[in-house]
């Protein structure tokens, strides 16, 4: 058979470069078929070639591997020949997935290769192992890999160290026992690489007292420990501090320095406070050492300094850290204006880290940062965006938000919504916003913003404004216009989030704000272009939901004409977008109408009568359309309302129209704001000639309003449900009915059985049930040998009188038992009715608390701050003040799930701290103190501190010593 090598295959693929897709597919199918043949064959070389070819194809095209591909890879892996074995290990990660069963077959082969005396095999096996390790494989090879940690060749040690990380990841238990071996590698003397640097080594040692080595093993170990510290409990790595600081001062390997500093950063929060100074002081000389070296070139400079900048936010606790942060920010701001884009990016990235602790330092460079929002590079824009959203405060939020809005607005050039957006912006600019005029749009070059970036931008705006319950917002009317602007200009699907914000803010902020929102929302609903294009993708139709709801809920606060509101809400397009919006809009229309009729009743005249009639007709038309909606919610509401409106309509048409005409229709329309004055005037007029007892309006005008005016809708506190107090007299564990089975009431009633058996089992149900009944009866009869006779306590058979008395007693008892249906008691009226006094236990019913609370709050209201916002939300009465939900990083870490690496802790202190003695996993490892190991570090003070606080578990396969507390152990040592 003609065989194709990998090279042939590649050549063939390249020959098909210009051919059609079908031809290529045919070629591929042929190739895969050939590979399948080769894999099945006996020739190992061919098989290996087939495996490699398959890997190549899988890398290029999303082809599924042929069946039992993994098995053939295992075969190649277990080949005794080096070059084939290597190909096998190379293919293994592609062939195996996490659920491939064949991995089990590899275990023995890998173990053999790991311990092979042939020095070139272990690296191959280790490299392959790192990619295919699974939990069970990790458990099996763990011991072998840890042997390799002390292999004679540095190269193997290095690989073993890295493979160890993968094993720990899959088999966290190994960390307990394997970590000590791993940390020994920190002191690895890697002779090969040191030798190569011999001349430099001596030079630097003599001149700068710096040991210039490139110890690959140590670097790899640091790398692994850094990764471990990120993924498991950082507390475990505290004892390494002295060693790491020594490495920090002596090593010249940039890679390792970065790693160590990252490690220090992770571990830093766990240092005891008295050690802060120590840490800082040991870091600063290193840092300055690096900065002096940094002058050699910009690339080196950043490589060296960047991690230190990262680090600085943790050093900020002490004064030294403050100074360090200042230097960092100064340096970074220099990078911001650098022409090297990479440096700019890094600077922004680093500033994001510094912002939380030193916002004042960053805000000095606000202009430069805002400038980079205009950068043509998306990555830089993203970082700048992240930074700006982190640095907002009360003072600069307007500037930043309008800046970002401008970005969004400028780029809607292609969309047809632009005219309306620009109009709207111009409109709102007149009222509050510092919105960009359309003139700016032409001045700047068009930027192409991807939808994903727009989403990101909008979300950033939303999150920076609503951070900490709108702590940065001082002017909520401005904020509301921003939200509406966002809906206009975003052009992406963010309506849901904007909707949430609008509803939230409207519910929280009181005072003059709500009427403003209502008029703003009404304007939105009246905007034909917006409403008509709402169903299109990316046009934030959800905002109409918010608009309808707000208009419906707070229409009574607004001075706008209710009739116009209803007409806007009855716009048929609103009912074509989606059902959710239809439901809300319909309800809102009815709500507004309820208020309209109630107001109209006060000065009932012909014009209002006509209005009401036409509105009822309009509403009923919309309602009847909705009654056939497939959406149940909408249908149900529509049907309910429709019935009410029929009533209303009947009442309206039966009442005779009022004769008095106070105003002409024209003047009324011309002055919408006049309505109220008009109302007052006419009511006073009405009072004057109020000679009839009967009101002149139909009573049904007040039919609807009570449906919607139950409670004011407020935002509920975050923990309101939790903090509902348990009433003192409520005992949830108590038994509701004290029912004890006694002699008279046991379930075995032989006497009654005979006469009641028939009725108990029921009747009918077909032949099967009849059969069942028969069997049941028989078995029941068998089970009771003394059928029909009940023995008294003294052993005598009970008499008929006794039985009758017992029966009567049982009946009497059943009568009051709610669990029994009583046939005799048909008189429903005889059932006692317990009157529920709602006012008595308002602590139990939270809604009552709400009413009371409102009253109680009144005295507090008179001096409200300008933005009257309810930040905490409503809480039930009698709840304690909410504790601020503030997590320290340490608390969060320990609270996190105890699975995987996170669950592994070596330290005794923290284990006894956060898990009780009983919960502690039963390990059979003896614990040991740090000072048992001879520590090579010369820094005696650091060591002393470390030993006084931290203990590490060492592996000794012996019985476990009971360790109740740390103090006890200290005395032991």
């Amino acid at each position, binding site marked *: 058979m003609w065989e194709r090598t*990998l*090279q042939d295959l*590649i050549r063939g693929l390249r020959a098909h470069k210009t051919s059609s897709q079908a031809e290529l597919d045919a070629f591929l199918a042929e190739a895969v078929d050939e590979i399948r043949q080769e894999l099945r064959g006996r020739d190992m070389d061919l098989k290996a070639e087939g495996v490699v070819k398959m*890997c190549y194809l899988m890398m290029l095209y*999303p082809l*599924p591997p042929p069946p039992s591909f993994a098995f053939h890879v295992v075969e190649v892996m277990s080949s*005794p020949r*080096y070059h084939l074995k290597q190909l096998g290990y*190379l293919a293994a990660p592609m062939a195996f*997935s996490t659920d491939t069963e064949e991995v089990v077959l590899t275990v023995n082969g890998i173990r053999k*290769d790991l311990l092979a*005396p*042939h*020095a*070139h*095999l272990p*690296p*191959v096996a280790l490299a392959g192992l*790192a*990619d295919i390790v699974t939990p069970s494989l990790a458990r099996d090879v763990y011991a072998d890999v840890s042997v390799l940690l002390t292999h004679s*060749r540095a*190269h193997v040690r290095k*690989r073993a160290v*890295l493979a160890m990380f*993968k094993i720990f990841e899959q088999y966290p238990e190994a960390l307990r026992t394997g970590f000590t071996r791993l940390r020994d590698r920190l002191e690895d003397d890697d002779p090969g690489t040191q030798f*190569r640097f011999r001349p430099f080594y001596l030079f630097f040692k003599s001149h700068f007292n710096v040991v210039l080595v*490139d110890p*690959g093993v140590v670097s*790899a170990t640091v*790398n692994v420990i*850094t*990764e471990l510290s*990120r993924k498991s409990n950082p507390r475990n790595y505290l004892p390494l501090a002295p060693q790491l600081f020594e490495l920090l001062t002596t090593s010249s390997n940039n*890679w390792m320095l*970065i790693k160590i500093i*990252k490690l220090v950063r992770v571990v830093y929060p766990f240092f005891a406070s008295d050690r802060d100074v120590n840490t800082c002081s040991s870091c600063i000389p290193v840092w300055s050492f690096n900065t002096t070296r940094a002058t050699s070139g910009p690339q080196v400079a950043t*490589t060296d300094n*960047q991690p230190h900048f990262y680090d600085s936010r943790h050093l900020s606790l002490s004064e030294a850290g403050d100074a360090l942060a200042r230097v960092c920010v100064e340096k970074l701001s220099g990078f911001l204006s650098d022409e090297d884009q*990479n440096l*700019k*990016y*890094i600077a922004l990235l680093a500033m994001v*880290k510094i912002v939380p602790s030193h916002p004042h330092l960053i805000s000095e460079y606000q202009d430069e940062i805002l400038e980079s929002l205009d950068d*043509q*590079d*998306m*990555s830089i824009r*993203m*970082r700048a965006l992240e930074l700006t959203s982190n640095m907002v405060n009360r003072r600069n939020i307007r500037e930043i938000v309008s800046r970002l809005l401008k970005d969004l607005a400028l780029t809607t050039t292609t969309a047809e919504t632009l005219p309306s957006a620009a109009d709207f912006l111009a409109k709102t600019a007149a009222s509050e916003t510092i919105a960009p005029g359309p003139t700016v749009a032409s001045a700047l070059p068009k930027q192409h913003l991807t939808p*994903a*970036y727009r*989403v*990101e931008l909008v*979300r950033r705006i939303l*999150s920076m404004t*609503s951070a900490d319950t709108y702590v940065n917002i001082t002017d909520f009317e401005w904020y509301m216009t921003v939200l509406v602007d966002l809906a206009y200009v975003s052009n992406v699907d963010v309506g849901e989030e904007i909707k949430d914000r609008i509803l939230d803010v409207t519910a929280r902020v009181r005072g003059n704000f709500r009427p403003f929102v209502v008029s703003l929302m009404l304007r939105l609903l009246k905007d034909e272009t917006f409403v008509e294009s709402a169903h299109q993708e990316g046009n934030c139709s959800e905002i109409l939901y918010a608009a309808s709801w707000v208009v419906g809920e707070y229409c009574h606060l607004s001075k706008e004409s209710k009739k116009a509101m209803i007409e806007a809400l009855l716009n048929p397009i609103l009912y074509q977008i989606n059902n959710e919006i239809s439901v809300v809009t319909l309800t809102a229309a009815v709500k507004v109408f309820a208020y309209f009729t109630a107001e109209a009743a006060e000065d009932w005249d012909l014009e209002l009568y006509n209005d009401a009639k036409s509105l009822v007709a309009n509403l009923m038309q919309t309602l009847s359309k909705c009654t056939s909606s497939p959406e149940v919610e909408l249908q149900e509401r529509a049907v309910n309302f429709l019935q009410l409106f029929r009533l209303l309509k009947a009442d309206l048409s039966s009442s005779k129209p009022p004769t008095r005409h106070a105003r002409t229709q024209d003047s009324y329309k011309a002055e919408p704001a006049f309505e109220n004055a008009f109302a007052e005037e006419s009511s006073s007029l009405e009072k004057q000639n109020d000679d009839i007892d009967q009101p002149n309006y139909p009573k049904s005008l007040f039919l609807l309003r009570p449906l919607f005016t139950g409670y004011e809708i407020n935002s509920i506190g975050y923990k309101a449900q939790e903090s509902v107090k348990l009433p003192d007299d409520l005992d949830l564990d108590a038994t509701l009915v004290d029912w004890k089975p006694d002699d008279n009431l046991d379930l075995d009633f032989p006497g009654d059985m005979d006469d009641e058996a028939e009725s108990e089992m029921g009747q009918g149900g077909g032949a099967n049930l009849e059969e069942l009944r028969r069997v049941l009866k028989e078995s029941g009869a068998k089970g009771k040998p003394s059928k029909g006779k009940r023995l008294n306590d003294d052993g005598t058979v009970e008499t008929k009188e006794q039985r009758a008395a017992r029966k009567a007693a049982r009946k009497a008892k059943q009568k009051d038992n709610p669990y029994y249906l009583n046939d005799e008691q048909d008189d429903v009226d005889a059932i006692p009715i317990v009157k529920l006094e709602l006012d008595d236990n308002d602590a139990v019913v939270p809604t009552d608390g709400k009413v009371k609370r409102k009253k109680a709050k009144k005295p507090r209201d008179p001096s409200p701050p300008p933005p009257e916002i309810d930040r905490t939300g409503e809480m039930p009465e009698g709840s304690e003040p909410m504790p601020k939900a503030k997590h320290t990083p340490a608390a969060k870490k320990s609270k996190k*799930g105890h*699975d*995987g*690496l996170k669950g592994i802790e070596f330290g005794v202190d923290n284990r006894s701290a956060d898990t009780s003695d009983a919960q502690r996993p039963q390990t059979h490892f003896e614990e040991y103190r740090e000072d048992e190991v001879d520590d090579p570090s010369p820094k005696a003070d650091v060591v002393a501190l470390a030993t006084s606080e931290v203990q590490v578990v060492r592996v000794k396969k012996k019985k476990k010593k009971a360790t109740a507390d740390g103090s006890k152990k200290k005395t032991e040592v």
Partner: protein
Amino acid sequence: MIQAVLIFNNHGKPRLSKFYTPVTSSEQSTLLAQIFQLVSDRPAGLCNFLDAPGLVFPGGKGQQGSTKGKGKVNALRRPSEYQPDEDGENEEDDELRVIYRHYATLYFVALRLDSFVVDGGESELGILDLIQVFVESLDRSFENVCELDLIFHFDEVILVLAEIIQGGLVLETNITEISTRFHEAAAQRKASASSVKEILPSSLASIAADTANGIRRGGPPGGGRLGVSTGDNVRNVAGRWLQGLGFGA
């Protein structure tokens, strides 16, 4: 941790894709296409880091974290693999960073996942340097590397990469060391391929011990026990084993 290393040319044709976390091949190719789209759109002179909203690393628990969450939504994030299921809050979401470099006709790309809370183990510039190291090592291994080398020797490219990164962690950054290791392994492969008999590691050890003694005594290398057809090959192969075992030094 580095999640993946990719090489593709100016037309988006992949030359190498190495993933360090299990990702199905269809996901790999869609991700590659996405990255190519984003990277090739960027003109020269921009920074080498790609922050692309909307780019999601496949695998893990899917993308449910990317759309929900009210206050701090980032399209780049995905739920961390180490996050317990029952924990509702996606606080440790990860962020995908693309670090790339463009050489003549090829793009070299490294993917890294950042935890949102703690920044990644590798620094951006560090990985950028690492890409440079990779390219230089390729150059040394292939002697003036060009795209064709990568096309026809994809297995060797993976082996070079294996000397730099193991399981997503950086193994070695010293170019000399990397190319030494690679050439050692290449010689091993050659020796193994050219010998006729199977080379069992166990028998190797005994032969090696024998021949090592022979060399130390100044005698001719090559024990008689190995039935290799040509004597030349014996010397060659045995000598390499000895080097491999560390006896040659």
